[in-house]
């Protein structure tokens, strides 16, 4: 594949300063509501703050790619006396857990850097983190061109993984016959 120059957007997370307010979760879910700002539900947020207060763990994690299968082996990390399991830092919407899935449908969610709704502005979670835990950074990198799946395709892929291709096709056919609004 060809090499292209690409603007990489990234968010640096200074987790030591996180105070657990969850403002990032709130605004992410509010911003991505349809219509925009019409509802809030932190469970739909593409950033989730992992909390274990008594061990002093306050860790915002972003939703990444959907994965159909969980990892084979899983370990634990001990950093600075605090114990984390592998999954803590993982961005995947993964069958091993509920994180990064729509609470009602179970469909995977993924951070889009707020591109889809409002391209060009700093991500909303960054804007709403007044404690400067989330720092927005842009850099240019040479990367291989890749074909990206859009949101519907990712959602469908996860349904295919869960129910099988044929079942999904059957259901869609059935629903369209009933005149259901997809």
């Amino acid at each position, binding site marked *: 594949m060809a090499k292209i120059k690409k603007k990489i957007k990234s968010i640096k997370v200074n987790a030591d300063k996180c*105070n657990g*307010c969850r403002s990032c979760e709130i605004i992410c879910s509010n911003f991505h*509501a349809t219509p925009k*700002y019409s509802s809030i539900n932190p469970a739909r947020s593409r950033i989730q703050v992992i909390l274990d207060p008594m061990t*002093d763990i306050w860790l915002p994690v972003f939703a990444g790619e959907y994965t159909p299968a969980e990892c084979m082996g899983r370990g634990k990390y001990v950093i600075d006396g605090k114990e984390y399991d592998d999954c803590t830092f993982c961005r995947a919407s993964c069958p091993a857990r509920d994180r990064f899935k729509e609470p009602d449908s179970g469909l995977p969610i993924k951070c889009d850097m707020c591109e889809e709704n409002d391209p060009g502005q700093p991500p909303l979670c960054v804007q709403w983190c*007044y404690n400067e835990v989330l720092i927005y950074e842009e850099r240019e990198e040479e990367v291989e061109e890749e074909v990206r799946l859009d949101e519907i395709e990712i959602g469908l892929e996860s349904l295919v993984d869960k129910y099988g291709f044929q079942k999904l096709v059957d259901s869609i056919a059935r629903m369209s016959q009933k005149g259901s609004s997809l």
Partner: protein
Amino acid sequence: MRCAETGYNLEIDLATGNIEKVETDPKLTELHLGGLGYNVKLFWDRVPPETKAFDPENLLIFSSGLLCGTPAFSFNRTCVTTISPQTELLAYPMMGGFWAAELKYAGYDRVIFRNKSPKLVYIYINNDKVEIRDASHLKGMGTVEIRDILKKELNEPKVSIAAIGLAGENRVFTASIEQGRSSASRLGGGAVMGDKNIKAVVVRGTKDINLARGEEFIKHVNKVGEYIKFRNENPLKGVMTILSGIGSPQEMKHTDEKWHTENFSWGNARTRRRDFWTDEINQSWSSTQRAAIKRYISCFNCPQQCGALISYKDVPRFKQKCFTKLTYSMAAYVDNLEFNFRIAQRATEYGVDGFSTPQILAFAVELYEAGILTDKDFEGCPPDKEGRFNWLLDRVVRREGIGDILADGTYWAARRIGKGAEAFDHNTIKKHEQLPLKLGMMDPLYFLMYSTNEKISITQIEGNWPQAPFPTKEMREEFVKDWPQLPDDHFKQYFLDWEPRGENSNPYYPTPDMCSEIVDWMEEIHNIDDALGLCCGMGSFCLKPPYHTHNYHLLVSSATGLDIDQVGLKKIVNRSRNLHRAYNVLKGMRRADEKPPQDHWKKRFPELEEQLLDTYYKYKGWNMEGIPTKEKLLELDLDYVAEDLERRGILKDGQN
């Protein structure tokens, strides 16, 4: 579709185990909003005024505020409402943290408990699944240690937990409801929870909350956010550091405690330690505090960080905020802060109010020193100050020996002990321990806030008006220049003319008329916060807050879709406020109860104080007993209240 609120109450009958999700009447929201306002209405409608705190008919309501869970910053208060065992009035201890928002995401605006459970239980609310679960294995457990156990048991790390400790289980009148970082501490909510046999209420919610006009709402919120940033970057000049910022008192961050240690008479409020804050103390306290604080933490959706995770030497970790940082050391006359972190950790596990409890322990020590309590009462008590406080705390939360009497608070304990103990109950209003102020000159604004508000906790005395006049005209001019929070520009003149000495100074200035206006406004802001679920540190309890009388209604209307303007909002909270007063009047509250503790100020002015009450009552539309007049009640669509008061002969037709 309901907006901002969920439109559902959760009704739980603890005696039968019946659980119901009940759709609420939208009209009630229009009349009373949510939080405190709505709860007061529920009490008026459903709980006969003869009801005592520990009667099964007493309700225990855990309520969110109307805007909790929305993106508006700092709307996170849980308003617990119940009849207080201590004051025997309708009380509403509040807490920040995360519980209220989680409840809304679970699909409920409030949980209403009635009757008592036959055995100790905890409630698990997970969206539509609500269970009453056995809690016998949690009996006696601390409010912090229970958290990890419940999270494991339920396999849900994201639950919010409100729990009582040993004190609540034993119906100690100062028992709190603890939520990890925050607590509903005042007036014995934890005792009622314990009486109803509820160890904890655990919530997890993953549902949506709707906003009527989201884009518009978020614009208003962003403006508030800009102001929060501005205030955080520009502390106010001319006031003490502790008053210069926004949020709850930043006790975890500030280390300079000269003011709080020397100007209050901690202990049981008799002596002030004027030369307490030496260089040596400053150094030792500051370093202890810094060593103890592991991380600053905030409440749900708030950029401030008033709380902290405490990790000190071998003390098990816990979270803390506000003045519990120093109340125990000061009350025990122990000069190091280490003692405070140690005993506060135990007190938090037990679940007791960090304001009242140290005063009660100090009260016992004073009675002992005065020979009113004897060696027999103190049998087994270590002789040193620290040991004595720890021992007393253990007795109180277990209601053992003298602890059983002390557990009712200083007012009731003094009367049970007798032998002159009543004279040592000199820091209560309406039977509740107050901030141990001991200042020189009576302050007319404080006097009214203290005496007349139904909140009866420390937050009631402070408002948006500065605590003291500024020394120079230039400073005053500077302060009023940028003061958009005022309800009207003419208030500025009151402030400009207010001087530290001379004719225009305390106690005769501000005049009773001016005081009435100022206090009425400050109280209104408190009532708005308590209905909407805003932390008072971002509204009613600090100087120049981000939320004020000119922007609340914009948030309320765009969030709910209700057509409410500034005047409309004022009327709604005024309605609930008068309903609350009327309910407490039915419970026996009268003018004679509206008196700050005798020795709060060295110089008192009995005549002026009566005049202040007269003027303020009149301003509020109350008669000279502090009872809302018929005219006032009708104006607020409270005809049914007027009828009730007349039927009972409390209001007499024609004479108000």
